[in-house]
Each structure stands twice: as C-alpha cells, then as structure tokens.
C-alpha cells in the first residue's frame, strides 16, 4: 500500500472508521424510549467515561483548539483550563445528584425540582438553544475536514457531514450513540496522539508530547532550527514570535492586549470561569451521567471522563507550539516558486502550501513583489468575513499570479482590502491540526488518520447534541408538557423527527457560520453557564430555592448573556464598550452571577417550596441505601401554575 498517497489513505481510514460506527449503531439501536434517552441505565462507568470524552471533545477541541493555542500562546490557556476545570464542578456538584434523581433529561430535573411547567419549558428552550449553537460548530468542523479530504468546497462538506450525522441521530438513540462514541474516542485519541508523538520526536527528541513541550529543540528537525544551540522549545518560540512582531508566545495577558482577543486579566478570568461553568452546564454532557447504574458509578465515570479528555488536552498545547515553530520555519521569507529563487539551496515553500491555498485556508499576497513570503504580525488584508476572496475566471478557474500563487480579488466592494502592514500571509487557524502532519512531513497514512479523527470528534459530539435536542422536544415538550398520553412508539418517532429537523438547521448554521469553529462553540458555553448551572446547583444545595427564583434567575441570566453576545458579535458593538472589559466569550460568567443573585433574591421574597419538594431534595443528596427505595417518587410536574 506504498503508493496509496494522502487521498487514498484518507479514503481508506475514514471509510473503515465509518463502517465501524455504522455497524455499531445498527447492532445497538434503541428499541425503547429508556434505551433511546439513557441507554437503559446499564452503561459501564469506564465505557461511559470514554463516551463522555468523545461526546465532549468536539471538532473545536480536535481541529480548532491546538490551532487557536498556536496563535494565541498563553491566552489559549482559557480553553485548556476552562474545558477541563468544568469537570471538577460537574463531578463534585452535579453528576452524583442528577444520577440519584435518575430522570432522563436536565429539563426533567428542573421541572420536577421546581414543580413547575414554566420552569421546565424555559429549561427546554435553553437546552435546545445551547445545543443548537454548539452543533453548528460541529457541522462547520465536519465541513472543514471534508473539504480537505474530498477536496470539495466547505459547503458541500457540510452537506455530506449532515447526511452522516442524520443517520446516527435518527437510528442510534443514547444506546447506539454510547457504544459508537466509545469507538470514536479510540479513533480520535489515536489520531491526535500519533502525529503529536511524531512531531515531538522530530522537534524535541522526546517521545511524549506532554514532556517534549517542556524540553529543548533536540530532535532531527529541532536541532536544525536551533542551529547548534541548546535552546528550549518555548524559549525559541518566544524569540521567533518576537522577531516577527508578535507578542512572546508564553507572555501573560498584559503583553497580549495589543495583539489579540482578551483585554487583560479580568477578561481571561471571566472567559475561563464561563467555560468551566458552561462545561458543567452543558446538557449533552450532564445527560451522560444518567446512563450509569449507580450514584458512585457517576462519580467514577466523571473521573474516567476527565482522564480520557486530559490525554488530548495536555497534548494540545504541545501540538500548538510544535505546529507554530514548524509553520514559521517553513514559510518565513521562503520563495513561492523554485524558479524565482536565486540559488538551489534558497528556501522555497513546501508542497502542502499550495494544497491548503486551494482550500482557502492559506493565502499569500506579494505586497512588495519580491516573490518571498513575509509573515509578520498584523492582518495581511481585510474582508467582509475575514477570509480570503480569490480572483476567479469566468468558468470559476483560479487566476494565478507570476509565481503561480492564487491571486486575491482586491476590490473594496466584494473582495479584500490590502492593509499597509508588512504581513503577506493569511493563515486560517483551523489548519494547524489538519496540516500539522504535512508541515512536519509525516507519512501519508498519518494525514489520513487525522482526517478520520477530526470526523470522529465532530460526529460523536453532533450525535450527542442532537440527542439532547430530540429528547427535549419528544420527552420534555410533548410527553411531559403538551400530550402526556402519547404512546411510547409515537414518542420515539417524534424524537427521531426532531433530531432530523435539528441536524438540517445546524447544517445551515455550519454553512453560514458566525465565526471560527471554536468561537461559535464558546458562545454555547456562555449560554449554558448563565442558564442551567445556577438553578441545578441551587436546586441541590439550597432547599429553600423555589420555582419563582429558578424561573426569574434563568430568564435574567440567559437574557442578559444572549443580548450581550448578540450586541457585540452581530450588531457591531465595539470592544471599547465591553462591560468591565469582558468579551462576549467571557460574559457567561456575569450572566451566571446574575442568575444566582436574582434567583436567590426572588426565592427569599417568595414562599418556600412544598414539604414534598424538600423531601425530594433530601432524597437526591444521599445515595440509596439509607432505607430508601432506588426508584423514588417525584411529584407530577403537571401540578402547579
């Protein structure tokens, strides 16, 4: 299979992995609503940990995160700490109690704990809204992988991905999804680790990327970059960054303010908190802890989940740093074509540059007409969506410049406007993980593996999210609110129909995305942080919390957060007007505080919850065994209001 090439290997590996998932999905398809919603509560905690890992690690984690870190340096820590630290909150404050409660969904808990149809409906709308935002990021990720793998347009990639996810969500249910996700975890962690190990060896001589991150440039490629010196990888990266006019890679926020996202420590703090709390409040993650047999299994499961997740999350900063060193070394002042190079040993861009230029993830504009790539700080050009817009002939063929590079359409109306910075290179952050194996000249099968891993990450998360959407509609809205008499068979069909509609809507958002893959997802966190987390925590830890408090808290929290994000992301609000210097990505933490404050205040001013509800809280707090029944009675939610 020597001559298979990148395309061939990608096709074989992606095809094999798809066959595996489809086989598992068919073998374990759901027959009852309990199997469709929570896999019949019979999942082994270790398997559930793996499934949670795949459910959790999305296209953003797999494709986007290392890329974002490699461009953001220290600031990338908000994602690393935020997306793992949330599991501590989940394990300690939510998972065991929600498992004890034992119902199917997050709105179920909210509706029963607060004995309120209104609270349930508000929670359903939040769950659908959050999952929908999040799933759009996944579809975008699927599109990015497909556009590379089949060399098709991203839009067509999104459509192909939609078809596959549709199959999963409709057939699988939680039971099918769980075992598919176990397989997807194995594929994605293998696919992320293999290139990371290769690159770590090449750059640092260390087999373990997590340790290579701390090492010096001692590998085959690394020592060439270090040019005989013994220098730490990150120290060298600081220097490369500074040479090109960027902030030092490891620099703390004060030094970053001028160049990228956050405004300072307040913002870094707020974003990290919002991501942590948002992680703990995401319905598709919480729901996974309903699938294990016992309360203590939920705790162990949270441990396995974070352990499996941390394998990728501790390798990602290493991959980001390695990728940036490689990228800078490969492109800096390189000639675009060998003909223009003055001598045979002058640096010329590698072959992968042209491949990625064709997908629009790289673009070069030769501002000073010297035929060499100047990569410096600052945008090379601006355009309506921040992406390159290429000149095309009548028949859609690319128009090329004197060196063979794709020419940008320089046009204020519907093209790009060149900036007066020295920078000539546009790099889409998403290419970091996808192109890293090529940048480090790894064998073709590794590149194919990365494509399979990226798809595993995106598909597993999308399936988990669509399950939440379909459950919210069929169980929480139809069964528990509108038509309690619906038969189980019809409920299953409604669930499948809702999943179908959800995935089509998500595809549309994937084709017309509001930002980068990881940033779209970041919005979902703000919304999860400001809606669910406070009402669930208060519902467990404060018996006095009542219906009025929960509803008003959720409405204020999510209303504030959504309005803030909408204003600054879509209605042209400028960053000078950020509240306390907090970006839209971090505002969920303020929304959460508002939810807590409003919720507690309103609860204090209104009547305490009924005796029955207080007993329910007592019951949730303690694992079964103290003379209590395993299946407990909860008051019917149709009461009240």
């Amino acid at each position, binding site marked *: 299979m020597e001559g298979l090439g990148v395309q061939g290997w990608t096709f074989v590996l992606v095809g094999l992995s798809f066959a595996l998932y489809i086989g598992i999905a068919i073998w374990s398809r759901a027959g009852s609503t309990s199997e469709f919603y929570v896999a019949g509560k019979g999942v082994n905690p270790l398997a559930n940990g793996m499934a949670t890992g795949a459910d959790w690690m999305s296209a953003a984690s797999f494709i986007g995160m290392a890329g974002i*870190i490699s461009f953001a340096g*220290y600031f*990338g*820590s908000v994602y*690393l*700490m935020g997306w*793992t*630290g949330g*599991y*501590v*909150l989940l*394990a*300690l*404050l939510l998972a*065991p109690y929600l498992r004890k409660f034992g119902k199917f969904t997050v709105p179920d808990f909210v509706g029963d704990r607060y004995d309120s149809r209104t609270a349930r409906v508000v929670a359903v709308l939040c769950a659908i809204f959050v999952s929908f935002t999040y799933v759009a990021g996944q579809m975008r990720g699927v599109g990015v992988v497909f556009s590379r793998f089949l060399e098709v347009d991203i839009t067509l990639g999104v459509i192909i991905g939609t078809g596959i996810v549709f199959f999963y969500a409709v057939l699988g249910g939680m039971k099918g999804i769980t075992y598919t996700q176990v397989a997807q975890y194995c594929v994605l962690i293998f696919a992320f680790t293999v290139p990371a190990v290769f690159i770590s060896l090449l750059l640092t001589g260390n087999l373990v990327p*997590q*340790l290579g*991150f*701390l*090492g*010096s440039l001692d590998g085959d490629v690394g020592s060439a970059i270090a040019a005989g010196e013994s*220098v*730490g*990888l*990150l*120290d060298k990266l600081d220097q490369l960054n500074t040479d090109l006019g960027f902030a030092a890679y*490891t620099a*703390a926020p*004060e030094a970053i303010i001028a160049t990228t996202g956050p405004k300072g*420590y307040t913002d*870094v*703090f707020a974003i*990290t*908190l919002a991501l*942590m709390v948002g992680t703990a409040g995401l319905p598709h993650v919480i729901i996974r802890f309903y699938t294990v047999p*016992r*309360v*203590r299994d939920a*705790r*162990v499961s*949270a*441990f396995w989940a*974070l*352990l499996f997740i*941390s394998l990728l*999350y*501790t390798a990602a*900063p290493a991959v980001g740093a390695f990728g940036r060193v490689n990228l800078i070394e490969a492109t800096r002042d390189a000639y675009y074509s060998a003909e223009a190079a003055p001598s045979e040993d002058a640096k010329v861009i590698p072959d992968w540059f042209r491949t990625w230029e064709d997908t629009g993830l790289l673009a070069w504009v030769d501002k000073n007409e010297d035929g060499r790539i100047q990569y410096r700080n600052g945008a090379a050009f601006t355009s309506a969506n921040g992406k390159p817009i290429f000149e095309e002939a009548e028949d859609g063929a690319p128009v090329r410049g004197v060196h063979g590079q794709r020419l940008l359409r320089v046009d204020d109306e519907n093209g790009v406007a060149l900036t007066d910075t020295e920078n000539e290179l546009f790099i889409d952050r998403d290419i970091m993980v996808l192109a890293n194996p090529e940048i480090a000249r790894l064998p073709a099968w590794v590149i194919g593996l990365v494509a399979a891993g990226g798809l595993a990450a995106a598909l597993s998360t999308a399936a988990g999210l669509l399950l939440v959407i379909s459950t919210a509609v069929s169980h929480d809205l139809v069964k528990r609110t509108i038509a309690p008499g619906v038969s189980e068979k019809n409920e299953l069909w409604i669930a499948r129909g809702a999943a179908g509609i959800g995935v089509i809507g998500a595809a549309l958002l994937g084709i017309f995305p509001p930002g980068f893959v990881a940033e779209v997802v970041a919005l979902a966190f703000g919304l999860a942080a400001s809606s669910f987390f406070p009402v669930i925590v208060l519902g467990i830890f404060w018996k006095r919390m009542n219906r009025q408090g929960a509803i008003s808290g959720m409405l204020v929290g999510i209303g504030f957060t959504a309005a803030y994000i909408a204003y600054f992301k879509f209605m042209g609000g400028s960053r000078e007007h950020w509240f306390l210097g907090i970006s839209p990505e971090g505002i969920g933490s303020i929304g959460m505080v508002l939810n807590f404050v409003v919720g507690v205040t309103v609860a204090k001013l209104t009547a305490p919850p009924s005796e029955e509800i207080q007993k329910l809280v*007592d019951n949730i*707090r*303690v*694992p*079964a*065994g*103290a*003379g*209590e029944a395993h299946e407990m009675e909860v008051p019917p939610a149709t009461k009240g209001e």
Partner: protein
Amino acid sequence: MSDSQPPRPGDVSRRYWVENLRIVGALLAVWAVVSFGGGILFVEPLNSFRIGETKLGFWIAQQGSIYVFVVLIAVYVLLLNRLERRLGLREE
C-alpha cells in the same frame, strides 16, 4: 453516639451531607487556587520560576492545572466511597 444502638437513617443522611460538603469545599478551594490563582492571577510572578525548559506559570496554565483537576476528582471518588462505606450508605 453510642455503639449499641444503630443510628437513625435521618442522622446518617445528615452526617453524610455535612461531611460531603466539607470534602467538596476543600477540593473546590484547591481547584480555584490552582486554576484562577496559579494559571491567571499569579502567573507573572510564577513565571520567574522555571520547570523543564519553560516558565512555571505558563506551564500551570497550559498543562499543570489539568493534571491537578484529574487528581482532584480521583481524591473525591476515593473519599466519598470511604465515607459511604463508613456510614453504611454504599449502594449494591
């Protein structure tokens, strides 16, 4: 509490909850100090120390904190399992 009489279920549940709150509180304090303290607020002073070939504060923010999170959940699992066994609340 006397050894001859088994404690009433309400008392056991109460003790379990109080101990649980203490464990959760202590672990969350570590969680906050390591991530928000070590990774953000004190990152600059910590950067004057080195670990391997890089700065300590930067490393805590990008890797060290994640290792601590994993250990925190492991400790929580062990302590709660022990507590449940001690109070006879272990599920079968």
